[in-house]
């Protein structure tokens, strides 16, 4: 376990968190190299199916991050994302996905330091949780014993 490096996928919006992560770079603030950023126009665009797909493909943790409430470039996309997250969170917990492996955060274009902090704390948390194989193992279970 000592050499476990978590794979973390970050789904971020173009206008706030992507720009915020750019600012982290411009400010030369170091953070854990475990995170891979995927750019969306808005958090409202983020289909939570992609969160499931990420786990299915071997992600250990997922960050969803966008503009603070009321600051959305598209007026209300982040509110839809938040509401979707509330519903998804319940459902994910219910079906057995470890919701501690999903981090929802607001990082604005001016919060370069916050982005580094979000990534670092979350990477450490996921490192402590260990590799996430549940989802993949579940997918491998043969269904012959399943009660239909």
């Amino acid at each position: 376990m000592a050499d476990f490096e978590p794979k973390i996928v970050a789904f971020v919006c173009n206008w706030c968190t992507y720009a915020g992560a750019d600012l982290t770079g411009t400010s030369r603030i170091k953070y854990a190299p475990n995170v891979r950023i995927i750019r969306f126009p808005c958090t409202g665009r983020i289909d939570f199916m992609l969160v499931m797909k990420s786990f299915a493909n071997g992600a250990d943790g997922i960050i969803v991050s966008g503009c603070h409430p009321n600051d959305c470039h598209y007026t209300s996309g982040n509110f839809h994302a938040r509401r979707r997250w509330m519903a998804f969170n319940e459902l994910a917990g219910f079906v057995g996905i470890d919701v501690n492996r999903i981090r929802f955060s607001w990082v604005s274009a001016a919060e370069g330091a916050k982005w580094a902090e979000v990534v670092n704390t979350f990477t450490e948390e996921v490192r402590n949780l260990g590799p996430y194989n549940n989802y993949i193992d579940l997918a491998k279970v043969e269904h012959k014993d399943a009660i239909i």
Partner: protein
Amino acid sequence: MARIGVFVCHCGSNISATVDCEKVAEVASQFPGVAYSISYKYMCSDPGQTLVKEAIKEHKLDGVVVAACSPRMHEPTFRRATAEAGLNPYLCEMANLREHCSWVHDKTEATTNKAIDIIRTLVEKVKRNTPLFPIRVPVTKTALVIGGGVAGIQAALDIANAGNKVIMIEKDPSIGGHMSQLSETFPTLDCSQCILTPRMVEVAQNPNITLYTYAELESLDGFIGNFKAKIRLKAKSLDEKLCTGCGLCCTKCPVKKIPSEFEEKLGFRTAIYVPFPQAVPNKPVIDKNNCTYYIKGKCRVCEKVCPTGAIRFDQQDEIIEVEVGAIVVATGFQILDTDFFPEYGYGKYKDVITGMQFERLASASGPTQGEIKRPSDGQVPKKIVFIKCAGSRDPAKGIEYCSKICCMYTAKHTMLYKHKVHDGDAYVFYMDIRTAGKNYEEFSRRAIAEDGAHYIRGRVSKVYEKNGKLIVSGVDTLLNAMPVEIEADMVVLATAGVAGKGAEELAQKLHISYDQYKFFSEAHPKLKPVETNTAGIFLAGACHAPKDIPESVAMASGTAGKVACLFSNDELTREPIIAEVHRTSPPLFSTCVGCFMCQPVCPYQAIEREQIKDRSGNVIKEVAFVNPGLCQGCGTCVALCRSKSIEIHGYTNNQMLAEVVALLNV
């Protein structure tokens, strides 16, 4: 098989210091579908761009990934280069190796691996990119200006003088706004009406401007370049074509004691009235709430005396629809409701007035013909106290901002007072003197040095009456918070400027955003100060934040410049990163099932209903349709769509899934 080119930039040493660029380029060349891969010291330089262009031609590339800095930095550069090489610019993507990798990680293998991962995801994405073309929409070269104050007037005149049509609507019977009520203006003390009224007349006479007074926006549809506005023309009870503006009706009207809005309730008007003598248009309206005929069904004196028979008691509100390409919102501000200050005794004591009332007292056209007289008994006040920041900068009362204009107009008031009452004393209670602006500080200094206004730094806790005097009880913080009491004859409150009545409602009609104080929000505080978040709708003047006249005029001219730019083209081009509903050939037509869940989530009202009909015109199916002129490309509808029938170009479901899969399956 795709033929993707990967171009890895060293960015001098910005990337290559922590990322092994040679290795990255080599690994990238092994990715499926990558036909060419190279690293170069400065990809954004001229030779770097030439490298990209030549590789596109030479290797017949059908997609480009530039692994360099943030797309927010150089995406336009490389998309332009791609287009110059004959490839659709939207087939070029940037992998952010600098801001998101080399600058934030140390020189380790993990950093280089991350760079490789980033490129792999973008290669998979770009394989699924499709050529996109900027969207063209026509432009109606008419602007709608909402509000006829000085900002609206300036914007309308500038837009009209650039050769465009303007429709101006004003909710009151006359244009002119707050500026027409002012006596003199700072920092020059020139007469407000003398400089404003010629411009008001210009608006009325400009052949490019159509003016509707007593009119309000009813609703708005459409999008930039193509708005459709419904305007309510409130019934004036008058045939304007017949009215000559002789004013006989106003002199004969028996209802004479209605507090005048223009005179800030210090004077009276009749039920059929022209708000002020220089009003534009100079034709009366009947105030239905106060007219005896409308209340009791009897009177009609105005109708009897009108020499041209212009009075129309049966006139109804009319709603007209206009097509406009741009909208300028210049609805201005209002002063804070003075119920806010029970401690200052406004409403309780007649001689506690607002700054705007003082303007009317000082105005030559005002109720006292410019003599400073107290409202209670008409005496000339010998001691007058001005209280600044009445409401402003007071978090306890919910207004944290500085109203900005009060420091200057209070200095002006003290000067006007001293110029008219030579033996009088003017006291000013202030928190700070904020007079930034050309010749502003000099002006306020003059009030103190030349006109002898007494400035006291401190707040007033209470105003109360004692022996016919108003006792102003405050504190002087420059004298160790020593309590101060002044026996005043009159008190003037520099009340906060707040958002206009109905600002919230108007913002919702226009779909523009507003702040916590209901002032309209600009698109970007620094770089887009006159635009709103809704394309084609612009702001001018104090509806955006408290502003003085020069600032309002400057902003209005800035806005007019933006509108003129917009109107200088016959067509607009927009980024094609927008949503589109799935369509296919019959018999399916579309996978959209017409649930229209996408409609309420769209922040831009871009989703419409489209009926698919057979040849005989029977409706087969009703599906969603994304209006390309309105869609801004947020993609909220895409994530929500249950049948996955909406895609957003540049961020399709396929692309995003491919990115996820490529990222994790190494």
